[in-house]
């Protein structure tokens, strides 16, 4: 690629090399791994989604394990996370009505 440095154009071959190498590099670390919304597992004030004013989701849950508040967790782990308020005893992928303790 160094031979292209003298001019400001890049050959098709240089572009192919760059894109091909970029593809290899970019797939190595799994940044942005798959996440899922998990309801009923967030402690109060620790729910996810700080999305600016007017959206009332940013760290606003008032109680621990609120059934309508969610947190982003790695995919597959939600229904294995304990939630004392959940009828199933674990986090759920949709909002639920908390059971009375």
């Amino acid at each position, binding site marked *: *690629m160094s031979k*292209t*440095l003298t001019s*400001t*154009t*890049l050959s*098709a*071959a*240089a*572009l*192919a*090399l*760059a*894109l*091909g*190498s*970029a*593809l290899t*590099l*970019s*797939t190595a*670390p799994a*940044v*942005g791994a*798959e*996440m899922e*919304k998990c309801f009923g597992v967030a402690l109060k004030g620790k729910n*996810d*989604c700080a*999305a*600016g*004013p*007017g*959206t009332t989701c*940013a760290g606003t849950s008032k109680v621990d394990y609120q059934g309508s508040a969610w947190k*982003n967790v790695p995919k597959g782990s939600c229904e294995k996370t304990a939630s004392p308020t959940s009828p199933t005893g674990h986090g759920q992928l949709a909002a639920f009505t908390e059971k009375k303790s």
Partner: protein
Amino acid sequence: MSDQPTFAAALLDPDAPCPAGLTAWNGSDPVRRFAVYRNNVVSSLIDALADTFPVVHELVGEAFFRVMAGVFVRQAPPQSVQLVHYGAGFPAFIEQFDPASSVPYLADVARLEFLRIRAFHAADADPVSPEQIAQALADPERLPALRVTCHPSLGVLDSRYAVASLWAAHQGVGDVAQVNPFLPESALIVRTGLEVHVVALPPGSDRLVTGFVDGLPLGEAAALALAAHPEFDLTIHLALLLRYGALSSFHLPTELSP
């Protein structure tokens, strides 16, 4: 009862008299009731700006922020009922706000924070698939003409200050004391799934991304970035954009024949 424009203007002007003809349901003094309402209107808008610009708020402190935001709110009240996008003009206002001139990077930090809000609410788009990339690579002769579409949430901020590092230091990543704010930095703001990322970019990336956004084909966008920064490395830049799902589609102009 006074007309609506008079009423609205009096809400934003602390020296304006209470609009004529107001009565309170319980017979209390309308002048005092109006003053309470006026105060609530302005302070709720200042609160909204504090939610949108938390790092600016931290950088200058509560007292300074409330005064600065209060001046802005009275000058530029919201034009929409949706407060989510309120404050688009706040960075430019900060730049012109004399008392803030001792913190020269404040306006760019505000720009970064507003790009994050924009990214949060931008439309979804799937990242370009490995199959699409393979398809593009299978026809290397046409790569220079490849059109690249960026994710709708994507924003780039080119700054004379270390905006991305400053912002990160306020998220508990790194130490503010270790950040030299006077090193120029470009920041990439993009949403992957539900998470908005702020990434410090190597020099030249802003040119490449701006080229894509302006609809330039890959070959021209890369040449522009290379012309601006001789050390520009296309591989690293494309890898970074692909890793964050910042590119959402590739296509070739159909009518083009060699």
